[in-house]
Every structure is written in C-alpha cells, then in structure tokens.
C-alpha cells in the first residue's frame, strides 16, 4: 500500500482571545496530503497561516481540530513517535548559543538517543555535506545567516527524519546564500527526503516545489504543480495596463479579439490615481495594437504596459485580486 508520508485533514487552529486581542482564526480548514519523496510547498503572504500549519505538523502548536498523520503516525496520539519522523528548521535561528556547531549536532543526536559512534560519524558527514566543516568549532552566533541556516538543516538531519519541515528558510538571506540553500535542498530531495517548505517568495516556490498549495487567510486557495497552476490562467500571456480613464474601460476591452478575461488589480498608494487592469490574453497577431486603439478610443490615458508570461505571482493575483508583497 502506498500511504502518503504526510496527511493533513481539516486542520483548524484558532488562537484563543486574550486580553485586548480577539481570537485569531489562523488556519480554517486545511487539507492536503504529501506522498513520500515529494517536495511540497505552502505559498502565501505573511499571516496566511503557513507557519501555524507547519507548527501543527511539528507538534509545537496544538490544533483546534483536524487530524495529522506522519508516515501513518497520528501526531496527537503518539507525538513522540511523530517527532522521531519529522525534523524542523524553524523560521527564527534557534541554534544553541552555548555549544559549538559540532556539539549542536552531536547533542541533537544524543537527544534522539543515537549511539556515540553513529552520532559522531553522522555529525562529521553532515558538516561536510553542508559545507560547514570549517565552522565545526565556532559558536553559532558568530556564523552568517546562511551558515546558521545550514547548521539548522544539518541538525535537523541528525536523527534521520522522514519529513523535513522548513519554515521560510531563506527569509533574510542574501541572494547568494539563498541560491546555495536551494542547491542544498534540491540535493536532499534528490536523496529521497520528503520536504515541506513554506515561503512567500514566488521564485523559490516555483523553482523548488513539485506541488504547492497557495494559502491565504488560513485556507488553501489552490493546489497543483507550479506549471499546472500557471497554465490554469486564461489565455497564455498577461497584459497589464496602468492607466487613467474617465469611464471604465473594462467593457470596451473585453470585446477585443484575443482578450480572454479582465481583472482589476488593487494598486498600492505609490501609483496614486492610476488604475491597473490585468488582461489575460491570447497573444495573437496585432493584439497589442487593437488593445491600445481601444484604450485611446475610450478616452484612456495609458501610462505603462507590460506583456509577460504568467508567473505564480499572477496566479496569486488571479486568486486574491491583490499582489503578494514581501
């Protein structure tokens, strides 16, 4: 039987009201299932419920309702067995400041009851693999953000988990360190590890994840492979118009041949007074000409145009009507 490595069913988490703060529905009915060996992503803005979902899976957050199993183990009924199967790379760098990098790994091995020979050998191998061997004796706070991130991954791998949970692993890293980390994660995935990653970087989700769930306001809006998500948009190209118009141009433009669908996009304060229209278009001969003519005929004052292939960001805008800002 091929049961999923991770199964999340109807997960709900409501943080109870405290003095001055009302109750927060962080996760409102999330279900998904991840087969063994998949690289799965949760993509969404800050506050969408990604971290809470990860927290429920790793047992640090107590779900209000719902059921989670890891490798067939119910995490509420048998949290200790579940913890042996999962490894967590949290959002904040929480390396033990009082130990050296190598000790961070060997002590983690001790916590999980690894025999001495095994934990020493594994610590050395992971230090090597994650390219932090030269920092083995350093104290974690003296390392760069990217190095600390790799130590956290090495630590997570010490007890040979089946599922690796990474919560926003590249937030705060410079582009170079981010790329190094992507390579590391790809390597681990190629080695057969099941990886669950949360991120609010479209590019990261697009490059790494085999399937991803787009999350907003505690719910999954859609779930598929990045390619399938992008091709789910009407048309095949996206034409964005930033313009000023006395009367709405939507009806005029939707009549243009090749325009499949029009959506207004919420525009931030910076582009004050400008309206942004998003046209899902079939990039046929002369399309741009026809659109521009129609804008002019409708009395529109066009400021800026962009014609692009759809990205995950566009999928997100299509689903929520707003941009995903870092």
């Amino acid at each position, binding site marked *: 039987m091929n049961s999923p490595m991770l199964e999340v069913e109807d997960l709900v988490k409501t943080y109870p009201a405290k003095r001055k703060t009302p109750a927060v529905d962080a996760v409102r009915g999330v279900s998904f299932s991840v087969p063994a060996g998949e690289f799965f992503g949760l993509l969404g803005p800050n506050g969408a419920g990604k971290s809470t979902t990860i927290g429920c899976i790793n047992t640090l957050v107590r779900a209000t309702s719902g059921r989670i199993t890891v490798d067939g183990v119910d995490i509420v009924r048998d949290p200790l067995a579940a913890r042996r199967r999962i490894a967590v790379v949290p959002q904040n760098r929480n390396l033990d400041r009082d130990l050296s990098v190598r000790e961070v790994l060997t002590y*983690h091995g001790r916590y999980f009851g690894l025999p001495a020979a095994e934990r020493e050998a594994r610590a050395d191998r992971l230090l090597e693999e994650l390219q932090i061997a030269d920092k083995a004796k350093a104290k974690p706070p003296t390392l760069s953000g990217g190095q600390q991130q790799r130590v956290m991954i090495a630590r997570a791998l010490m007890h040979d988990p089946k599922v690796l949970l990474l919560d926003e692993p590249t937030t705060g890293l410079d582009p170079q360190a981010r790329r190094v980390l992507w390579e590391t994660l790809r390597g681990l995935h190629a080695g057969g590890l099941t990886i669950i990653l949360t991120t609010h970087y479209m590019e990261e989700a697009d490059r790494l994840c085999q399937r991803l769930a787009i999350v907003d306001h505690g719910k999954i809006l859609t779930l598929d492979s990045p390619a399938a998500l992008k091709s789910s948009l009407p048309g095949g190209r996206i034409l964005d118009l930033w313009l000023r118009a006395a009367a709405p141009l939507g009806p005029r433009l939707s009549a243009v041949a090749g325009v499949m669908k029009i959506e207004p996009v919420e525009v931030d304060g910076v582009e004050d007074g400008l309206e942004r229209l998003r046209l899902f278009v079939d990039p046929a001969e002369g399309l741009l000409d026809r659109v521009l003519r129609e804008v002019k005929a409708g009395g529109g004052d066009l400021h800026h145009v962009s014609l692009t292939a759809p990205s995950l960001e566009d999928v997100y805008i299509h689903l929520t009507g707003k941009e995903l800002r870092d």
Partner: protein
Amino acid sequence: MTTFLALLRRDLVVAGRNAGPLLLATLTQPILVVLVFGNILPRMNLVADGFRTVMLPGLMAITMMMAGVQGVLMPLTQDLSGTREVDERILAPIGVLGVALEKIVAGAIHAALAGLTALPAMMLLMHEVGGMSVHPRWLSLLPLVASCGLLSAAFGLTLGTTVQPRFSGLLFAVVLGPMMLFGCAYYPWAGLSALGPIRYAFLVNPLVFMSEAMRFAVTPEVPHMPLGPMLGGLAFFFLLLAYTGARSFERRTIL
C-alpha cells in the same frame, strides 16, 4: 530516559563552562553577609554570640534558593526569548513535561552544589571568631540539601515562566528580597512564637522550611521545626511549584 539524561548533560556541561561567573553570582552575597555579620560585627561585640550559629544554616538556605532560582531562570529566559532555543528540546522525543522536569533537576543540582560549597566557605570565614556550634548531621544533610534544591529549582521554573523578563529586576526586589528577610534565615522559626499567631503567616514562604531543614541538618543544637511539618512543607511547596511551573512552561512553549 536517554533524552532526559542527554538534556541534563547538556545543561550541566554548559553550566560547568560558566562555573566561574555562576559561583560568583550565587556565593558573593552570602559570603559577604557572613563576613560582616559573622566576623566583623561579632569582633566589635555588636551581635550576640548565638547569632552566627542561627544565621549559618539560614544563609545556606538562601544560597540554595538563589542558586536554584537563577539556575533555572537565567537559561530559561534565553530559551523562551525571541530565538526560542527551547523549541529544539521540546521537539526531542521526550515531551514538554519531560523537558520541564529536566530543567528542575538541572537547577536542583546547581542549587545543591552551591549550598554545599557555601557551607565550608562560611564556616571558614567564621572560624577564627569562635563560639559557634556547627555539628552537621551528614546523613540527613545530603537528602535535605537535595530536597531544598528541587524546591528552589521548581520555584525558579514557576518564576521564569510566569514573570516577563522585563520584570525580572522587580522580581528580586519585590519577591526574593522579602522572602529572604521573612524566611527564618536570620532567626529560627521557634523564636517567632514571640510574635503570637501572626507567625503562621510566615509559613506561606517556602524558604522558612528550607532554613529550618538546614538548621536541623547543620546546627541541631538550635531549636528547629519538628521533622514532620518541615518535610511536609518542603514536599507541599515542591509539588505545588513543580506543578505550576510545568503547566506554565507548557503554556509558554506549546501554542
């Protein structure tokens, strides 16, 4: 159990590396008090002879209380701070309550060692003055020191998980300071009969039982609380504080 011992080992190794500052933090105060009240003032004939004998076990209790509280409170503040180092330990296959218990045991070892270091140090300082009657009952001393250590560490866990770090200065001024003054450290519980029934109000202070326990073990000649109520008080406060501390540790760590 393996996980528990591994966590304990980690805490002791780290504490061992910081032994210097830790000893300084816990022993400075009692040693200076002994120097002034147990050595200088008696030489000036400003305090009664018996006071030193009364004060010695009390100061041992205070040392253990401070060491136990600090031994848990300081690392815990770091654990629960923004970086949440504690999450790694909670994610070990042991459970939150296991981690809480480990904190208490680590703090208790810290406290017991501080108490056992303080005793000879203080005796040495008061040695040349004479007129002291210290006759430790070694067999009861060790289990009582261990019990006092556990109680102090449980108190540290309760304080560390309920008091926000920005109030920790206040904690020493408003909670620990008064506890030390009203904890029968500088006078025996038996002497409080002079106050009438109000003396029972002192019993809300767990340090009373610790001071009396040390009096029983170190200076048996001084009148002390009978063994039954004394052990009962230690056990009651340990269970109460360990339960409260563990529960609030769980609340702080699992959302």
